[in-house]
């Protein structure tokens, strides 16, 4: 701890020199805006959940203090009262060189909202550390800060430095040991600039797509799948204003980082700093909770380990506590038992954490589990890879199968076996409508929407616990055994399959085998797409599903666009609307559908021809005459959208398509109408000649109309040669 302090002082000295005494600030988000720890987080904010018997936020604050941060703004949202109360009582308030200020919000639903609010408060004056309150780290910030500041001096667009660490995800489950999804990053090996960031990757998609432009700027890029994002960011104040300017940014990574990388906003750049020997990890889900707990017990996070008193909280010892613990109890390695806990005889505990004030009976077997404070476990219970929250009562002989989560004050009935991966809570699962509403931002939104109801419910629960208990008891009994209290949450649909991925329990062998099998199949499928049987490496033939989707989307769009333009045009015909108005309307359509002038020209031409076709006619010659009339009438309008050759060619292509598909009646008239358009000066001869030469290499079937207009084209060719 002493040498850590030394490092901290050095940081502040540097800061003094560089930035005329701007204290190093940090924003700590005490809300993860996620729901992965439900149902526990319905009653207590995630940052206050005990991690090896110490609330997570204490780890984060302790690290910030040791890293030389002087001012921390804790942003509280969900259960903000609890966080503020906790901090007020903690020793963090009133430290001499370390100030902790809370910022409370009730309506933020994302990290983006939080940063916008902080921007409005105008409290950040220099570079700051952005961190979430569930991060455990012991890295020294000195070097990263130094790098960040030097980069800033050279390039004011380097707005953020992201801390990353090597961590190879499992090749079979595609997730890291922290249970997070695999992450693909492209980094410039020389400057360490982040060029590409893809988490939440689509497993079915077998390829990564990088923009070729990246390679024109950098002759070498390294692409990583073996790095883990530590969610520790060193940011410039501009980051906050960027969030304000782009009010749709919600998620730090998915929106902000991708936004900067893909949209290239103002040339802002993100850089990475890789740490090698120090520790940094974020508790994202139950699996990372398990992994990080083990890392803490195994002292990877030194000095943030149980037997070092790194802040006001009492230090616990991994050695067996002689408090009321009978001699025959066996406590295995890598186990922490809190103060005031009594353990009965012949009880075996291994690889587990037991909190303070727990009462554990005899003949209990606890393996790989996390038991929080004041839990009572009666004789003969069996727990494997479970999380048991405060105040839970497990009656004798109850069994928790791997992956079970028991939320606060749940009572499990005698001899009851809680099935694997169940989540049990005194609170009922929020109804579907609720969750749909809040899932608007994928799964990054917080539990804010139903906060009022939950808090009131839990307040009520705390207040009139007894009456509530008696209410629930009668029918909860069937769910968690006789005498049990609590609801077993049904797993969300689709989530059922994935439950094992993020649970504290190790991945069962059968799942693993299934996943490997699935992966092999996927590989065949996805690669099969990527590899055409002929093996010719043409860029367009390496398309994959999502690409086709994109294409379809575009096609859908253009179909709608065409219909809209046609409707507009028909209205103009029937209501005698001025041409200028039609142009205005089509332009607005063009903008809303994000179409090009060529699309407009194509769609308008389509509408014209459709109109001609829909006008009653008896013979082909008559149709041709009608078409000529229509074209003459609307010549000006059409011409407006034909500023260059490209659009004219588009019109010809459109016409061709029509003749083949929607308006076959025109097909014998193709050459005639082409000639007509030429005569009316709608199409220039270059457009027609270009079209003809483009078609030269096409299939025979594609050339039908070129053949038909051969004479005309020949005539044009000769004419142009004569001119020469």
């Amino acid at each position, binding site marked *: 701890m002493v040498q850590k302090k030394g490092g901290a002082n050095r940081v502040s000295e540097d800061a003094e020199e560089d930035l005329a005494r701007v204290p190093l600030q940090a924003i700590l988000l005490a809300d993860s805006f996620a729901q992965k720890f439900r149902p526990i987080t319905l009653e207590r904010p995630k940052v206050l959940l005990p991690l090896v018997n110490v609330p997570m936020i204490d780890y984060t604050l302790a690290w910030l203090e040791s890293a030389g941060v002087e001012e921390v703004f804790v942003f509280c949202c969900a259960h903000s009262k609890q966080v503020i109360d906790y901090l007020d009582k903690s020793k963090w308030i009133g430290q001499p060189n370390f100030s902790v200020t809370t910022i409370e919000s009730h309506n933020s639903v994302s990290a983006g909202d939080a940063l916008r609010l902080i921007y409005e408060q105008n409290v950040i004056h220099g570079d700051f550390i952005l961190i979430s309150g569930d991060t455990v780290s012991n890295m020294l910030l000195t070097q990263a800060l130094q790098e960040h500041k030097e980069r800033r001096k050279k390039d004011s667009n380097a707005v953020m430095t992201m801390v990353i660490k090597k961590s*190879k*995800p*499992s*090749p*079979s489950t*595609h997730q890291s040991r922290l249970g997070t999804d*695999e992450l*693909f990053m*492209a980094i410039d*090996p020389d400057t360490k600039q982040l060029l590409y960031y893809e988490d939440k*990757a689509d497993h079915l*998609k*077998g*390829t*990564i*797509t*990088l*923009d*070729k432009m*990246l*390679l*024109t700027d*950098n*002759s*070498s*890029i*390294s*692409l*990583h*799948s*073996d790095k883990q994002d530590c969610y520790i960011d060193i940011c410039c104040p501009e980051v906050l204003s960027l969030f304000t300017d782009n009010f749709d940014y919600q998620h730090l990574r998915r929106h902000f980082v991708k936004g900067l990388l893909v949209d290239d906003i103002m040339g802002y750049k993100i850089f990475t700093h890789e740490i090698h020997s120090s520790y940094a990890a974020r508790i994202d889900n139950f699996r990372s909770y398990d992994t990080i707990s083990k890392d803490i017990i195994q002292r990877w996070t030194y000095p943030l380990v149980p037997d070092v008193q790194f802040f006001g909280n009492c230090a616990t010892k991994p050695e067996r506590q002689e408090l009321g613990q009978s001699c025959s109890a066996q406590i295995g390695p890598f186990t922490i038992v809190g103060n005031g806990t009594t353990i009965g005889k012949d009880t075996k505990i291994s690889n587990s954490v037991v909190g303070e004030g727990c009462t554990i009976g005899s003949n209990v077997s606890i393996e790989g589990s996390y038991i929080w404070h004041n839990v009572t476990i009666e004789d003969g219970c069996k727990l494997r890879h479970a999380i048991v929250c405060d105040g839970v009562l497990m009656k004798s002989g109850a069994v928790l199968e791997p992956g079970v989560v028991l939320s606060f004050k749940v009572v499990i009935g005698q001899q009851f076996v809680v099935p694997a991966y169940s989540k049990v809570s005194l609170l009922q699962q929020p109804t579907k409508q609720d969750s749909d509403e809040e899932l608007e931002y994928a799964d990054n939104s917080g539990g804010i929407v139903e906060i009022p109801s939950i808090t009131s419910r839990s307040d009520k629960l705390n207040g009139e616990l007894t009456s509530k208990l008696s209410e629930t008891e009668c029918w909860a009994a069937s769910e968690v055994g006789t005498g049990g209290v609590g609801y077993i949450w049904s797993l969300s649909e689709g989530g059922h399959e994935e439950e094992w991925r993020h649970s504290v329990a190790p991945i069962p062998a059968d799942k*693993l*085998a299934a996943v*490997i099998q699935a992966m*092999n199949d996927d*590989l*065949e499928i996805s*690669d099969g797409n*990527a*590899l055409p049987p*002929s*093996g*010719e*490496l*043409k*860029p*367009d033939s*390496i398309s994959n599903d999502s690409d086709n989707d994109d294409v379809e989307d575009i096609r859908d769009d253009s179909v709608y666009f065409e219909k809209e333009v046609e409707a507009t045009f028909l209205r103009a015909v029937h209501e005698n609307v001025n041409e200028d108005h039609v142009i205005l309307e089509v332009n607005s359509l063009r903008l809303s559908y994000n179409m090009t002038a060529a699309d407009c020209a194509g769609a308008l031409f389509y509408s014209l021809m459709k109109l001609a076709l829909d006008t009653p006619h008896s013979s082909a010659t008559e149709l041709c005459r009608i078409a000529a009339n229509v074209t003459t009438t609307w010549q000006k309008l059409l011409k407006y959208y034909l500023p260059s050759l490209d659009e004219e060619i588009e019109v010809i292509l459109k016409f061709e398509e029509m003749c083949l598909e929607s308006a076959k009646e025109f097909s014998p008239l193709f050459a005639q109408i082409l000639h007509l358009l030429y005569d009316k000066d709608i199409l220039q001869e270059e457009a027609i000649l270009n079209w003809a030469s483009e078609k030269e290499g096409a299939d025979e079937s594609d050339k039908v109309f070129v053949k038909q207009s051969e004479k005309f084209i020949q005539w044009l060719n000769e004419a142009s040669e004569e001119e020469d």
Partner: protein
Amino acid sequence: MDFQVVVLAGGTSKKLVPLVSKEVPKALLPVANRPVLSYVLELLEQSNLKDLIVVVEGEDAALRVGGWISGAYVDRLHVEVAAVPEGVGTADALRAIARHLTANDILVVSGDLVCDVPPGAVAAAHRRHDAVVTSMLCSTPVSGSSDSGSSGGKDKAKKSGRCNIIGLDPTKQFLLHIATAAEVEKDIRLQKSILRAVGQMEIRADLMDAHLYAFNRSALQAVLDQKETFQSLKQDVLPYLVRSQLRSELLLNGAQAEENGNEKVASQNNKVMPSQLLANASTPSFHELYALGADGSAPVPRKTHKCCAYIASKSKYCARLNSIQAFNDINRDVTGEASHLSGYSFSAQNNIIHPSAVLGSKTTVGPQCMLGEGSQMGDKCSVKRSVIGRHCRIGSNVKVVNSVVMNHVTIGDGCSIQGSVICSNVQLQERVVLKDCQVGAGYVVTACSECRGESLARKEKIQSQ
């Protein structure tokens, strides 16, 4: 070394018209007054690779190339010349000569390669990793190194087209991705499965595929047999092998073990061992790790094969004569910065003037120039950074800058030639001015013509009359 070498010497490439003709196929185009093919052959000879098959497109061209080789290398190399029809792809060319291939590994070299990277090193890397294919990669020549500004600009413009997008593992030994930059339209697509297995991939755009490959023969033949549509080694076969390296469709290990009489590496049931030993690595490569699955949990070892890369050091020279621009550049480089390749010893003035050449008074031949046997120059001529072939007759007051003049060329008084290529038997009458032109064999440029950036050649019709 039990390597068989296939030199793909091409035929009369359309890109090189008018430099090439029926009489002069691509392989015999002069680079510093020696056929370009001789550079490859001597490079191979230096690595003690003497068992060669030279594949030429077209019977006539094959006869000419064969004639030249038997004259020049009769007692030095064991060369077979095979003719394949014109216009076939490189893969088809190999199919055509498949029955002649017997060695375990095949080295395939493009006949237009001018470089000083020892092919033996590539072959050794190939053997060390027991790879299916090893490709030689060279750093692209840094544009602008040549002092003439205009051609420097051209280099740059060409650079993107010539380069490949190449994915390498962190040790830079394995090839994980390959695509031609010109073919990649907008996005680079990379296979996640390979990236996952390796963890980290370095993507480079500054490397050039030198068209020198070492193939495992049985693998190569399996691919050629199975994939009948594959036409090009570079565009079809190599990318296919790279893409499928983690789920190999080649029945390699078994077939190889049977055939490799001399290479019977002890235990066949422990397939990982031999290559691991050869790779002298304490840690197995990602291929082996992947084959065994996570913690050896894969039910059946997956079939994998290795694709390696040999990256030549930056100081090495490597270029391919595949365009007129390249022809100019290579001729300039071989007499200039890469002069060790030419095999000649340069004079104190850093040029080579054949003793039988005759120079008039006040005629200067600058450094990095070459004047062939029996050529004559009149008075007050100036030659800079150019190659002049044998038995040329050059008048007075002639300027030749940055150009290549082949054999038996007659140049009249007062001509000025810049950045041009003059093929054999051309006649330039008085005061012709050529800039960035190519003049095909036997053409006559009339007096006082001025040409810029043109390609002058006799039309076929005239030839037949």
